């Protein structure tokens, strides 16, 4: 295994764990995440409950699949879409002067407000996801085709 493959495995597990841990606190309590989404003031009010229900599970299941290296390429595409939308939302709110909870890693009791640090961290995660995507295989699809 080359150093590049070792790095990919390590980053894949770390990125997967980040999504699993950041979502796990909200899986059983969608009302909490709906408050956070409300504070972002971007999503129409009618869609907030649905998003609060689906988003944590999407992050959690994709995180687990990434750690297990199952359909990694497709999973990374979803995670990239999420990361781009999170980064866009935080940047948009910072630009219009809004200050509210990030809702990022509350499982560790971190009450973090959105800031430029959040944006930089998300950009780093996007770069990691792109690095992983370039070397990822959709394991089950390719096995099926062989």
């Amino acid at each position, binding site marked *: 295994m080359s150093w590049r493959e070792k790095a990919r495995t390590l980053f894949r597990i770390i990125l997967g764990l980040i999504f699993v841990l950041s979502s796990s606190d909200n899986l059983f309590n969608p009302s909490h995440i709906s408050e956070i989404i409300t504070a972002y003031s971007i999503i129409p009010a009618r869609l907030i409950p649905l998003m609060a*229900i689906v988003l944590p599970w*999407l992050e959690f299941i994709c995180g687990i699949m990434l750690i297990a290296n199952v359909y990694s390429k497709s999973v990374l595409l979803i995670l990239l879409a999420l990361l781009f939308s999170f980064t866009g939302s935080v940047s948009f709110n910072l630009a219009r002067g809004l200050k509210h909870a990030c809702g990022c890693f509350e499982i560790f009791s971190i009450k973090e407000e959105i800031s430029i640090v959040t944006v930089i961290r998300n950009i780093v995660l996007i770069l990691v996801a792109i690095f992983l995507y370039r070397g990822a295989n959709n394991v089950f699809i390719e096995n099926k085709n062989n």
Partner: protein
Amino acid sequence: METNLRGLFRVVLFSVRIFLFCFIFATVFNALNPNGVALFSQHNAEGVEEKEPFIRVDSNHVQALYNKVGVIFVDARSKKDYLKNHIKGAISIPKEDFTAQFEKLHGLIAIDAEIVVYCGSEYCPSSEKVARRLMKEGYSKIYVYGNGWNEWLMLKLPTEVIN
């Protein structure tokens, strides 16, 4: 080139399938989850809001009630959220633990007491459910503070943490 496009199409197709699986799983899980939230607002087929047995109050009305002597505030969120922080002086009666918690506290609440029930925000159903349970127990002066904890915190009104 064609192979690359076909490969990308397959990857996108599986992304859509994964998303749909998560979507269905999450909505089914929410329906079974005692802390689940309502997918749709409380309107009947004609688009008219269903008649509620309690009074809904906004931030001005709730502050007036807070300053009135004898009004009891009930926190319908989970015990964990209550312990983290809550409206100063509120008691905890979580929806999922209503019977046990109510047994402990009902002797302290007069049957004609005015009670304000709140949960996290307008999207959590717990305050309404606890309000309905309290009405079944015979309490009639029930108010639901719909915007709840989220708005109270934003307005920087008195809160309290239990260590």
